[in-house]
């Protein structure tokens, strides 16, 4: 069988981030992949050492555009632990409320992108339209659609009135209705199931050995969730179920994410019901005493860990940020093994790479004719849609069915 290596590039000037994969194929089957990352490396950790803690909160928040609250909460928790600050309960509840709302908007976004990757664009249009509802709620609560800027060292910066929380409840009811609809699609739709199951398989042991985190690991029966194992903020008073799934593949990850949405709605309702009164923040000193702390956070994509070392001045000595996607990327090469090229887009999208810390480039050199073709991400995506349509799995019928379900 002709064995040839497909380096995947160049960056496609569409939504996708710059990333470089080199995939060795034998015929259609992928044998091994190697990754070239770092195109998005901005040197944030060095910049943190040159700025004060107050400024760092906003710098760390912009590591990734979609899970900004995760990074800022994780960082602020570490600093509070070093400085020995006790955040008032209401502040913790508000922080957790924004965290869950961010998980809702991030999972809806992923649902659309996954649909787009396999050629099911109706799902993209629908999930992004519903996502606008959550974005508007977050904008009215925190003052910005993304990068909410809610966290400060010692608590949160804004308090919410009763009416605002009432509105959030109304929004959650609407979204729950829509998510039931998506669960129905994810569970029953045969074409979706055929297209996703068996793709990007990651066994339980591999998931543990390669350090997969978040929904990617939970879909391989790894029962780990930082919110339950290492509770932070207000998660210890919340009762919620950690969703795990035994499919070990992309279909399992879809199920885990969609069901996690339902859990988030329950948690948001519980948070608003139990929201205690009182102050939302405590005054933080400008100079943080010497010490070091490790803090973890369950971001929508997985475990996000920060290590902060303080030396008594108002600037941190060292800030280490490890985004969840870096952990999941290790297992991608294992997932891609003996899949075919057509499965690359959806397998990569399934770990829901937090775009700003990964990069994707696709370069195809055809050994027979020897000329170098540069297959962009978009064309690889369409190639895979077509490749599957050839095997009878196709979404145009499905688009209609989903739309009709929608109007029922």
């Amino acid at each position, binding site marked *: 069988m002709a064995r040839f290596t497909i380096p995947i590039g160049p960056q*496609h000037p569409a939504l996708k981030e710059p990333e470089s994969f080199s995939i060795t194929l034998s015929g259609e089957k992928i044998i091994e992949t190697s990754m070239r990352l770092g195109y998005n490396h901005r040197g944030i950790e060095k910049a943190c050492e040159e700025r004060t803690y107050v400024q760092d909160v906003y710098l760390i928040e912009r590591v990734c555009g979609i899970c900004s609250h995760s990074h800022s909460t994780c960082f602020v928790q570490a600093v509070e632990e070093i400085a020995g600050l006790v955040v008032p309960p209401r502040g913790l509840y508000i922080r957790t409320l924004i965290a869950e709302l961010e998980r809702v908007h991030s999972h809806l976004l992923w649902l659309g992108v996954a649909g787009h990757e396999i*050629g099911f664009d109706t799902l993209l*249009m629908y999930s992004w339209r519903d996502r606008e509802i959550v974005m508007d709620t977050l904008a009215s609560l925190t003052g910005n659609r993304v990068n909410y800027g809610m966290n400060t060292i010692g608590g949160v910066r804004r308090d919410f009135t009763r009416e605002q929380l009432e509105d959030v409840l109304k929004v959650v009811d609407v979204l729950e209705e829509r998510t039931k609809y998506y669960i129905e699609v994810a569970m029953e739709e045969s074409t979706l199931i055929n297209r996703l199951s068996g793709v990007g398989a990651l066994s339980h042991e591999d998931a543990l050995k390669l350090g997969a985190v978040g929904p990617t690991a939970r879909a391989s029966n790894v029962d780990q969730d930082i919110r339950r194992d290492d509770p932070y903020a207000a998660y210890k008073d919340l009762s919620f179920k950690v969703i795990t799934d035994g499919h070990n593949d992309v279909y399992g990850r879809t199920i885990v994410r969609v069901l996690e949405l339902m859990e988030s709605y329950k948690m948001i309702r519980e948070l608003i019901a139990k929201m205690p009164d009182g102050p939302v923040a405590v005054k933080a000193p400008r100079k943080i005493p010497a010490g070091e702390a490790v803090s973890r956070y369950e971001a929508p994509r997985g475990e996000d860990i920060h290590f902060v070392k303080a030396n008594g001045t108002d600037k941190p000595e060292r800030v280490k940020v490890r985004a969840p996607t870096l952990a999941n990327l290790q297992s991608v090469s294992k997932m891609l093994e003996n899949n075919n090229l057509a499965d690359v887009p959806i397998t990569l999208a399934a770990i829901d790479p937090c775009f700003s810390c990964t990069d994707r480039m696709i370069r195809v050199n055809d050994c027979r004719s020897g*000329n*170098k*073709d*540069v*297959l*962009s991400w*978009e*064309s690889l995506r*369409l*190639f895979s849609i*077509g*490749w599957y*349509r*050839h095997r009878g799995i*196709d*979404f*145009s019928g499905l*688009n*209609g069915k989903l739309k009709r379900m929608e109007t029922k």
Partner: protein
Amino acid sequence: MAWPLFWILIFPGFLFLCLLGWAVEYVDRKLYARLQNRIGPPWFQPFADFVKLISKEEIIPTEANPVMFKLMPVLALTAVLTAFLHIPLWSTTPIVSFDGSVIVVVYLLTLPTLAFFLAGWHSTSLFSTIGAVRTLTQLFAYEVPLLLVVLGPALVAHTWSLGKMAEFYNQRPLLALPNVVGFCVALVTLQGKLERVPFDIPEAETEIVGGTFTEYSGRLLGLFRLAIDMEAVVGASLVAAVFLPFGLGLGPIVGFVLYLVKVLFVVFLLALLRTVTARLRIEQMVIFCWKYLAPAALFQILLSLVLNRII
């Protein structure tokens, strides 16, 4: 006198076709957007796109053969224009009418596809070569059913000239009814000829980001898009002339309005087809054409032969 010049340049010729082509593109894009619950572009959008493209700087790749690179859009345009002269618009006598004009029109409509192929081939970028090869494979798939289906009514009318065919059906409109199957097949194959979704495989957004027109920009791209718009008008009026021949010869004004209605009706059906279906892959498209369209066309021919026997 300068009648022929007037015919070629102004009336059923270049200017008229340009305006109608842009109108058809506008209707198509607006309908497509409205079906997606969006507003869609303003009415002058196709004209603005064309003028902008004409005024843009065009880049000709160094490896590409400049003569062929520039010639292809012109070839596509001329083929479409000459085809339009053969089609009876509202009176039963088209500008040029001779025995065998049906074959000539269908042949002239394939020339633009060849122009697209050569354009893609000559711009040497890998994307466009793949796009060009796909244009040809697609040509073989939809060409046979289109030709067969257009010949059906010709058999019944015992003539190869479009003018006489229109006259024949004008006197006996009822005879056009059995051509319904042919009408549907013609619509689907026209969609393939115009390279629109679901058959837009060689087009820009296909598997290869660039498609046939990757390397084109500025004036040449503008001419190509104009050629495609005109081809849509010519294709629609051919289908209208062959399959909906009633109401010809009722005088110029009424005839003209009726002709516009028929063309817009065909364009509406094409736009609907474009919104409703998803993009096919190249093998699937070829299988679809040979497994479903060709037999339907043959059935249409059989029907016409039987009709021939009866009348």
